[in-house]
């Protein structure tokens, strides 16, 4: 176990990796006058403005500058009141006091938020993550005012040693402008700081469960969030590679050595992730009860991460035609995730088996083979993929193109599924198609918190289909609306409607 001073060294060492630190450094130098100027707050408005509103404005401004993530900023703006802190109006007398309190509070939050990222060096071996003194760090943040004071002192000293003259480390300011009853202060402050560290690790958490954890479990749990984040970062770093070593740069499909490293990292990730009790990301719900992912599911997750990396390559490469092989490869990986995972789990040399499976998929992609799965299975696979992607989309901002791709995938799978059963559906094809499209759309919209816009889906879909058809007719692309294409056209219409509603909502969020 490392000492606090060593942890502090590591933190200061990695500060240059964090973009958020640039914001911290920028605002630490700014005084109330400069911030007032930046926000366009004239001093005469002070009489009319409540000092606490001023504090919130400044805080929101700095947090938004640092994160550009609405959801995260919203969380950080409200977490104090969740924990029971109330605005301390007596303390804020003048506008300048409010501005400085807002700044202090925002900067303390930013410091806490970057700790999960900078506390461990990115070059550390995944198996070493747990020996980096993260528990010590979390302990000193959560435990008491004294432990926090010590941390402040140790890190600030280290910063001075490393030549950060104008910046300083301060997390005590987190309460700035807020007050809470003394009897609750210690435990609530502890929970609030833990929540911020968890948020900084980018994992979803169950608020109620976090609030109910006893002190030692809370420290352990928070440290696990950070370690899991580090293990995941290491995993994606190994997949994407850097510089001249990019093991998955198509048409490369890794090597046995790369995979054995990845499997080791995956084991580390699994070790941390399966100990977390308040995070839902690594749990699956079966028959109403939650259970932690098994090794099989983690392996499937690794394949999915690799697939996603190839899919992102596909998007980055411009002209569509040239990448048919990569396109087919991604399709096979997506469609046969379960088969690949099963075959890996059954073998003794897992790393070698992944390599062989991927090489096989590549060979099949190059001769233009399609994934060998039944439409039903594909539909299920696509839906679960979609669900996972969209759930992540709420945590990370997913690019519009990626979203559209997922939506189109889901609807393509519907078309395939129906195509196969078209004879047995008989005259009910239309109705069945509409119903399954409607239901799938509902799931998509609901995952994205857009369930309320379902009412508008039918007319938006039809309007888009009408305009699209008219455009095609006007251009002479199609001469008549043929009966046998009805099913596909229904599917496309719904896909269009969902795509519009989702993208429009996303756009509105950005504004």
């Amino acid at each position, binding site marked *: 176990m490392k000492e606090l001073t060593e942890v502090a060294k590591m933190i200061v060492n990695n500060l240059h990796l964090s973009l958020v630190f640039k914001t911290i450094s920028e605002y630490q130098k700014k005084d109330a006058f400069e911030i007032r100027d930046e926000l366009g707050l004239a001093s005469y408005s002070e009489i009319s403005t409540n000092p606490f509103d001023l504090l919130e404005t400044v805080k929101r401004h700095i947090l938004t500058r640092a994160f550009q993530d609405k959801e995260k900023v919203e969380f950080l703006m409200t977490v104090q009141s969740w924990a029971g802190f109330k605005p301390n109006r007596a303390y804020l007398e003048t506008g300048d006091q409010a501005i400085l309190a807002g700044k202090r509070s925002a900067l303390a939050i930013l410091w806490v938020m970057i700790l999960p990222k900078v506390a461990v060096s990115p070059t550390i071996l995944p198996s070493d993550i747990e020996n980096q003194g993260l528990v010590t760090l979390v302990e000193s943040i959560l435990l008491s005012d004294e432990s926090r004071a010590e941390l402040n002192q140790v890190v600030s000293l280290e910063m001075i040693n490393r030549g950060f003259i104008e910046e300083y480390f301060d997390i005590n300011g987190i309460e700035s402008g807020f007050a809470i009853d003394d009897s609750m202060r210690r435990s609530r402050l502890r929970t609030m700081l833990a929540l911020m560290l968890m948020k900084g690790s980018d994992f979803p958490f169950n608020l109620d469960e976090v609030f109910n954890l006893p002190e030692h479990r809370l420290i352990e749990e928070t440290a696990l969030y950070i370690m899991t984040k580090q293990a995941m970062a290491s995993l994606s770093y190994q997949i994407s590679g850097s510089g001249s070593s990019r093991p998955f740069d198509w048409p490369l499909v890794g090597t046995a050595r790369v995979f054995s490293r990845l499997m080791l990292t995956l084991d580390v990730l699994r070790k941390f992730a399966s100990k977390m009790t308040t995070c839902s990301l690594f749990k699956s719900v079966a028959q109403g009860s939650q259970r932690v992912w098994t090794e099989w599911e983690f392996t499937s997750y690794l394949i999915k991460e690799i697939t996603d990396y190839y899919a992102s390559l596909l998007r980055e490469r411009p002209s*569509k035609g040239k990448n048919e092989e990569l396109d087919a490869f991604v399709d096979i990986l997506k469609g046969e995730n379960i088969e690949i995972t099963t075959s890996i789990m059954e073998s003794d040399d897992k790393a070698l088996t992944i390599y062989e499976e991927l090489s096989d998929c590549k060979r099949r992609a190059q001769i233009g083979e399609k994934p060998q799965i039944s439409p039903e299975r594909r539909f299920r696979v696509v839906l679960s993929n979609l669900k996972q992607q969209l759930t992540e989309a709420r945590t990370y901002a997913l690019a*519009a193109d990626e979203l*559209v791709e997922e*939506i*189109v995938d889901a609807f393509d799978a519907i078309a395939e599924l129906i195509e196969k*059963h078209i004879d047995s*559906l008989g005259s*009910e094809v*239309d*109705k*069945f198609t*509409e*119903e*399954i499209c*409607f*239901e799938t759309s509902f799931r998509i919209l609901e995952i994205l918190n857009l369930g309320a*816009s*379902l*009412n*508008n*889906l*039918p*007319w*938006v*879909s*039809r*309007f*888009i*289909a*009408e*305009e*699209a*058809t*008219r*455009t*095609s007719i*006007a251009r002479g*692309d199609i001469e008549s*609306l043929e009966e046998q294409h*009805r099913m596909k*056209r*229904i599917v*496309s*219409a*719904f*896909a*269009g*409607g969902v*795509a*519009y*509603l989702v*993208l*429009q*909502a996303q*756009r*509105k969020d950005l504004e």
Partner: protein
Amino acid sequence: MSEHGKKPLRLIEIQESVLPEDEWIIGISILDYFNGVGYSMPSSMRLDRNLLQDTGLLTGGILTSDLTASSNIDDQLKTESVENEEEDSLLSGIYKHETDPVKASSRIENKGLHIDFPQSSMIIESLLNSNETANLYAFLPGIFYCSGQQTSVDAVLIEVTQTQRFGMTLSSFRPEDVRALDVSEGFVFNEDGGKRSVKVTLDTLGSFHFEDFLKDSGLSTEIMSYSKEVELAKRLAGLISFAELMRAYASSSFLRSRLVKLLDDIDFFGLAPRRRIYVRNEKHPYGRVVEVNYRGFDSVLNLGVESGISCADEIDLEHQLNNLVFTKLMGTGIETDVEVAIMEMFQLIEAGFKGKVSHREVLNTLSRED
């Protein structure tokens, strides 16, 4: 009905398919009447008969469903059923068959030798029995124009049935397919590509086109990576917000062609009942316009006492429709039936338009902002 509340007359569109060539129904109704679409409640008679079937295994005792129809004079429950009738001072003098305890018995008990006069034909009886279970209807009274039959109707009645296919529930009716259109404002693109809101009038109807700006955007079939609908949706999402899309729809040429049909119809036939309703049920899965008569409405003229809808062509449908009971939510919530609802809706619509039925005036009333 409140004259000063929010706009009571709404333009309603029912589209059950997303394909452009498929059927649509457009019309004018007052959604406050049922607070949306009305759904039929099973009538109490019906409930009793179902109970009888369900408890068929029980023997002994008195079957409750028989009690109201009992001819036993000493039976307590019988008198209760008469008292339960709602008291209407205007109707107090009217003799009602259904409430007469003697007549209400479904069986005629004769003793000794007699000639049996059939009360009702066996065919009709068996039809009625077969109709027992299917009785949930979605109902929207108002003036509607149906694209399939190219004619106007007084109400839309859709039987709600559900079937299972491959684990999916296929429902014959989806509430999301019915929507009230806001035509107070339209949306157009200027010559220079700018966006602009316009008031919807006969002149601005149909002035919105997507092609105007898609033509120059280089959207060709070769570079489309997805279906043209998704490609279009992607572009739209970047250009037009949802609120704007709603307004764009109000001024789209598709809506125009539909609305004009409806306006033509109202201009020609006025606001009088059409004596036709659109019905879709198991017997007419693709929907059918049925000729009907309103007995209650007609009896005002010939001083009769009959009420209820009559369909000369389909006796079983007539029976089915007359059995439907809906809960009216406008004003004080009371029970109503198909005929009464249609008649009341006509009065409300007439009051809303104040007899003005020209294209311009109808559109003005619908698009008025208040």
